[in-house]
């Protein structure tokens, strides 16, 4: 067990919504008065949770609430969550830009942050001057920068433009230079927020490699915030999932990425609410079995699992066949299978409850899919479109991009032969 380099305890941050600079004098006085009487901040009690969509009656909000975690030396720690979940606030607190409302952060080392591309770059100064300026802003001494200057320029790959003012740089060149400076910094803890969003694939690859080197070989700690789950999956050992300013999951990347993909608000149970009352039988419910996620209606892409349909026969149903369809949200059919195709799978049901089991796997992109199930015995016995959708999660192991628009999700392997 490696030693912790950073520990966060009960960290919370409250913000005031709307126009901050009107009427604050009276609030300030009110706050000051309650502090004099050793009472709690009157506005802290009012604060609501951080939910973008919910309409709030008061104008104070907890952007972060009660966050606890610790990070070991040399670890690459991922922070994921939807927009507005509090990721940036957490990074701002970690990098000392603003102070917490409650809680503490204990650090054992210098922190260097790369919160936004080219922070502190001066447009009129040349690339060379900006390397020194940016390095100094990030806490480096001049001789440290000098020592690493060639390395930085080399890594950024913009040697030709090093004496050109950075206002003439393309956005890609800007990022290259900014990342190069930050990656060659000395701090024990490096904070990286969404840098990989810009820059071409080759440079992204280079950055990922550099980050791995920084953590594994130099034993430095990296905080990595990204919406690119493939990058998070490949880089991070552990991660934190934030939801509305609170810790949703903290732990292994697998666990966090799984939770990130599952919609927590969805508490459908796969049971049919309204069963048709006339007929010879009807479907009762569906669920999965043998899948990795604990949710009974969620599976990983490509993994083997069983899909189970429960059926209640009210009458004897001879020579029936089960068929079902899986379709994407836009209505495209992904799969349509019938038990009697090829193998002649026909069933004989007596009155009572039955459970059909279908072994299968779905090499499709992550998302939600609609199910349709039907039982056919020369006429349709029952047709059911469950309200519960089948969720497919991504392992983020393939080359595919996270925001893939493609239907399939398969592991690909590239190689080249010179002919």
């Amino acid at each position, binding site marked *: 067990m490696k030693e912790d380099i950073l520990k966060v305890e009960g960290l919370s941050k409250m913000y005031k919504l709307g126009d901050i600079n009107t009427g*604050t004098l009276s609030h300030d006085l009110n706050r000051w008065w309650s502090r004099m009487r050793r009472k709690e901040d009157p506005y802290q009690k009012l604060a609501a949770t951080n939910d973008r969509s919910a309409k709030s009656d008061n104008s104070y909000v907890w952007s972060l609430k009660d966050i606890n975690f610790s990070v070991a030396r040399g670890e690459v720690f991922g922070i994921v969550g939807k927009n507005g979940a509090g990721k940036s606030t957490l990074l701002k607190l970690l990098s000392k830009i603003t102070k917490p409302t409650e809680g503490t*952060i204990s650090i*054992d080392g210098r922190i260097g942050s790369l919160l936004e591309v080219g922070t502190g770059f001066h447009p009129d100064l040349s690339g060379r001057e900006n390397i020194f300026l940016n390095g100094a802003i990030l*806490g480096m001494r001049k001789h440290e920068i000098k020592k690493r200057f060639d390395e930085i320029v080399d890594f950024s790959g913009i040697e030709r433009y090093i004496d050109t003012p950075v206002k003439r740089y393309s956005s890609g060149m800007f990022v290259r230079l900014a990342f190069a400076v930050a990656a060659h910094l000395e701090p024990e803890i490096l904070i990286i927020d969404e840098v990989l969003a810009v820059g071409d694939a080759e440079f992204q690859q280079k950055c990922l490699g550099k980050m791995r080197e920084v953590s594994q070989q130099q034993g430095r700690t990296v905080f990595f915030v990204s919406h690119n789950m493939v990058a998070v999956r490949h880089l991070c050992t552990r991660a934190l999932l934030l939801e509305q300013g609170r810790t949703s999951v903290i732990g292994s990347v697998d666990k966090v990425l799984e939770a990130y993909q599952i919609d927590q608000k969805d508490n459908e149970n796969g049971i049919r609410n309204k069963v048709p009352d006339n007929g010879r039988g009807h479907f009762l419910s569906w669920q999965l079995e043998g899948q990795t996620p604990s949710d009974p209606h969620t599976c990983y892409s490509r993994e083997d699992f069983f899909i189970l349909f429960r059926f209640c026969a009210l009458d004897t149903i001879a020579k029936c066949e089960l068929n079902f369809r899986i379709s994407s949200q836009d209505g495209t059919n992904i799969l349509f299978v019938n038990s009697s195709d090829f193998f002649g799978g026909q069933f004989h049901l007596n009155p009572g409850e039955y459970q059909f089991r279908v072994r299968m796997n779905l090499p499709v992109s992550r998302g939600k899919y609609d199910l349709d199930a039907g039982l056919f015995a020369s006429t349709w016995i029952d047709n059911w479109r469950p309200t519960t959708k089948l969720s497919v999660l991504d392992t983020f192991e393939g080359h595919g991009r996270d925001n893939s628009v493609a239907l399939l999700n398969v592991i690909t392997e590239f190689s080249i032969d010179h002919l």
Partner: protein
Amino acid sequence: MPLPVHDTIPVQNNIPERKWQEVITPHNSLFTLNIKEIWSYRDLLLILMRRDIVAIYKQTILGPLWFVLQPLLTTITFVIVFARAARLSTMGLPPILFYLSGLVLWTYFSECIIRTSTFLKDSSPILSKVYFPRLIVPLSLILTNLVKFSIQLGLFFVIYLYYLFVQKTPVAPNGYALLLPVLILLVALLGLGSGMIISSLTTRYKDLAHLTTFGVQLLMFTSPVIFPLSSFGKGVYGLVIRANPMTGIIEAFRYAFLGKGELNWPLLGYDTLFIGVLLLVGILVFNSIEKSFVDSI
């Protein structure tokens, strides 16, 4: 049964408290000034200064010549308006020397206060993205202005030497000229202290910024830049002028180099005390907002 000896040793069941290099808490430490941290960022201070000075060179045609033209043109205006038209006393000194000596010091003070009073707002793009000791920015502004001030002081000395050796005006410097570095330091600290207070307050109450520029202009009329201190008695106006911490400094400067004016030790002592208290209040106010101003700009 007697206890075995080793049982008397207390069992250490509490793990020793971990020593962290730094702990971030919601509380501000009001009276500390992290000199060590600022010192570790001294290269940033130099680079920021260089950046500001280079920016002045790069963007204008006349470049640093403006530094010279500005006080020169103001002095000429003062000579025409106050000495020639209004016939105000310059204590028998050549009006150019009289006005320039006051203006050079006053310009440094007002530049320091005006630039530092808006620095939190002006530098917010950087300050809200990355952490470094925030005090670096006002310090760099004051040092950059010191370069500008040195050029203007040079101008004063050129004209001074002309009067001394060509015109043979009896304005020889005396031993108190050695006080010059102290006087400059006092002006710099005065600018820094008031700038820190104003900039801290402007992050919350924005209209203060307008007041500053205007207020500093008005404040000049309560200093001996235009009128010598000796032309006021002990009346109310004399007290107001003496209350201005720049008064003692400007008078001492004139006395040291021009031989006229007042080297008033109690007044200088008051100035020093005033500046010391102001600086302390400045640090206090600045510390209280340093870690949270990003949320309100």
